[in-house]
């Protein structure tokens, strides 16, 4: 039986269909999930995709965080369900406090779309086991509110516990503290990052390259071996 990965659609989500495609290309089954449902349809893992849920009004992720499906996601994430938040999904996860810190507007005040170099700093999470520790990958980045901030204690804790999962290389595109591109919770099942691995899964599409596929093969491996 193949692994079932749920992909949530909030109103204003943009990358849900792309994420489903990435899940399929990795060999798993993509299960669409709707924000108004509480039911996760017994999926083995959940992705909160990118986009502008609720137009990013108020704060990115602030309104989606209160949708019915998030009640279930929060509950099950605490019980170990693998959850990946990409871009807007990451913003939702920080708003729920499943992941610490917060996302603010880019320090240059502009939307930025670029091919971004990252280092995988933690290859032990549910979503990164298919990468090597320290591996450098290229993944597109596109956002308005990508500046990761947290208080000093939280930052120190993240660094000490190896919970900075991805760091920007060459260019810090938004003023994120410690060049943080993505983080994980202590258990390693909840991961969030600003760049878009689902846009780097086919050679000729997007920025080119398939460096993002590893997120989806990682979770597959994790689930099949579980």
């Amino acid at each position, binding site marked *: 039986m193949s692994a079932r990965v749920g992909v949530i659609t909030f109103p204003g989500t943009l990358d849900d269909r792309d994420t489903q495609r990435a899940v399929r290309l990795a060999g798993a089954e993509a299960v669409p999930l709707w924000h108004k449902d509480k039911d996760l349809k017994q999926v083995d893992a959940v992705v909160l995709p990118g986009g502008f849920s*609720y137009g990013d*009004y*108020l704060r990115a992720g602030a*309104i989606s965080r209160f949708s019915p499906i998030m009640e279930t996601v929060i509950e099950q994430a605490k019980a170990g369900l693998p959850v990946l938040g990409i871009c807007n999904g990451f913003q939702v996860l920080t708003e729920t406090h499943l992941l610490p810190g917060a996302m603010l507007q880019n320090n240059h005040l502009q939307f930025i779309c670029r091919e971004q170099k990252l280092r995988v700093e933690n290859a032990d999470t549910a979503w990164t086991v298919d990468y090597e520790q320290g591996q450098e990958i290229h993944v597109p980045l596109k956002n308005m509110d990508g500046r990761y901030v947290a208080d000093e204690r939280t930052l120190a804790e993240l660094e000490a516990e190896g919970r900075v999962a991805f760091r920007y290389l060459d260019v810090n595109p938004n003023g994120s503290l410690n060049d943080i591109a993505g983080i994980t919770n202590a258990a390693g099942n909840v991961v969030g990052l600003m760049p878009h691995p689902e846009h780097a899964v086919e050679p000729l599409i997007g920025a080119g390259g398939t460096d993002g596929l590893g997120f989806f093969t990682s979770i597959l491996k994790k689930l099949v071996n579980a």
Partner: protein
Amino acid sequence: MARVVVDVMLKPEILDPQGQAVQRALPRLGFEGISDVRQGKRFELEVEGPVDDAALARIREMAETFLANTVIEDFVVRVDEPAGATS
């Protein structure tokens, strides 16, 4: 040094999608009884020197030409006094 606050709000006839989105979310979060929400910007300016009429006039001009686009926004300039009810 004194603080001057400039509040910039969309004109009443102009659509405020942000305020609307907030208002629509409130009942879902269990907050009833808010019939309208408008979201605007608040600028806090630290002014060097005295905040006299001349300074306020300059700040009003600044608000009019730069902080607000008066085609769609209204603004209010005021000297910051410790607010009444606070959090």
